[in-house]
């Protein structure tokens, strides 16, 4: 959120430069979804809804409980992006064919576009926004991606990084060939692949998996 505030502030400054009166402040979300204190555990098992009904969910995302009332069809990806303002996870195909939406659920990399938000209830979800340390320090994988220029447009990057972290933690980063195979579920149309492999080989050392 901080970044977005900065971003909007940037627009306003430019607008002043150009002497236009309009403000984009109205674009800002009027409500921020605040984590409430409520145990996740029991609610998780009892989720059910009828067709067309909204479903009330508690999702455990990046260590926070997030309460949502959603169309039952909402994918985990759309819940993150459209309802929680966690837009780091990207929509590239919505059908499990590109990997841009990769998040961790209970410590494993999965595709949030093919996961219903309901199915993720009661599980521990980590997104790109939850990867950096609480002090804002980059995860070694994030730092390695910058250092090795492992992206260009950056759109697939959050998915690549979530996948890369899991790739190392799974023990599938022994050599370049293994990394290439285990990272093939994340398409990079800018084609930073050799740099992605180099970044993972670099980061796995800092992750203690070399």
């Amino acid at each position, binding site marked *: 959120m901080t970044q977005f505030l900065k971003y909007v502030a940037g627009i306003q400054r430019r607008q002043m430069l150009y002497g236009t009166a309009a403000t984009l402040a109205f674009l800002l979300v009027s409500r921020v979804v605040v984590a409430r204190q409520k145990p996740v555990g029991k609610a*998780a*098992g*009892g*989720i*059910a*809804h*009828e*067709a*067309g*009904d909204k*479903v009330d969910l508690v999702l455990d995302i990046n260590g926070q409980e997030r309460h949502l009332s959603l169309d*039952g*069809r909402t*994918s985990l990806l759309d819940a993150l992006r459209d309802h929680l303002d966690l837009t780091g996870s990207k929509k590239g195909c*919505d*059908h*499990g064919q590109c*990997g841009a939406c*990769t998040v961790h659920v209970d410590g*494993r*990399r*999965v*595709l949030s*576009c*093919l*996961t*219903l938000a*309901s*199915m993720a209830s*009661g599980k521990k979800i980590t997104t790109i926004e939850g990867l950096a340390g609480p002090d804002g320090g980059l995860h070694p994988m994030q730092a390695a991606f910058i250092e090795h220029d492992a992206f260009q447009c950056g759109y697939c990057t959050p998915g690549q990084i979530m*996948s890369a972290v*899991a*790739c190392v933690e*799974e023990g*599938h980063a022994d050599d370049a060939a293994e990394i*290439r*195979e*285990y*990272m*093939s*579920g*994340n*398409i990079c149309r800018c084609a930073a692949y050799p740099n992605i492999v180099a970044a993972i080989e670099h980061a796995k050392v800092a992750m203690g998996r070399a």
Partner: protein
Amino acid sequence: MQPFAYTRAHSVKEAVEIIHATDKAPGSKAEGDAQTQFIAGGTTLIDLMKLHVVNPARLVDIGSIEAQREWSSVTADKHGLHLGAMASMAAVAEDKDVLRDYPVIAQSLQLAASAQLRNMASLGGNVLQRTRCPYFRDVSFTACNKRNPGSGCDALHGVNRQHAVLGGSDACIATYPGDFAQSLIALDASVHVAGAKGTRTFPFAELHRQPAETPHVETTLRPGELITGFIVPAAPWTRRSAYLKIRDRASYAFALASAAVALDMADGRVRQARIALGGLATVPWRAKDAEASLAGKPLDERSAAEAAEIAFSQANPREYNAFKVKLGKETLTRALLHVATMEI
């Protein structure tokens, strides 16, 4: 996606009871139109629901059944291998027993999809994955007997490079897209199912149905039945086995052709061969005549090529997939020669 009701089941028993209670029109329509569907990983179902190809009224989420031990376990003993249907593709692909004693199973799982999808997809869901036929997957094409019985088949004279050359009919030539099923069928696996009337076990080879005149009926599962596991019998050929998958790109792609091969060799000759073909047929395809042709022979270029010829003697290619006959033969030949000489 059309609206659906959603329930989480807490046991297999509960899951099949919910299905039994809620599926109003069992059996009469295509699986895709079953009113209630189980959902585990969701990798096939959510995909097809977004495309409006499958429109269930109710989902029963079996992904969180708490007593999951048998349901998702991998157990190997002297009788064979038991695979729980809720085990993930990733877990089974990396299981040490499977890797050592049933390499064809590990490889068929490992070479499928992506790491993320293998984490999500269950074995039970995997064997039931639906075809990639573009005319099936795109509801804006009108002629698809599998999706809409009696509507015709746009693939017969359409873009059919990926389509089947084995097991097709004038009603459907959609390819069975999976990999794992080929290893099961090659190894004479059985499948366990649970239904409202109890459980049953039958040969995996009887699970999938060739399209014939009813391509919308893809399996022999009875309405409301749930796959709970697979049994792969121990056999002298399981260790000498491999899965060869040929595709355009190096990973994250469906097979243009694949072969699951297991051999029992003695004194340089084949005692028994087990062969299944993927990417080439409408169902997981067991090539029994080809297997028989190898019995008692040394496995060499000549016997492998003969087996390949036999495997494709009934092939029926179309405009864009004629190459698959040659490719299928070469794939099988290559797989046979590899398995015959692999270190075990």
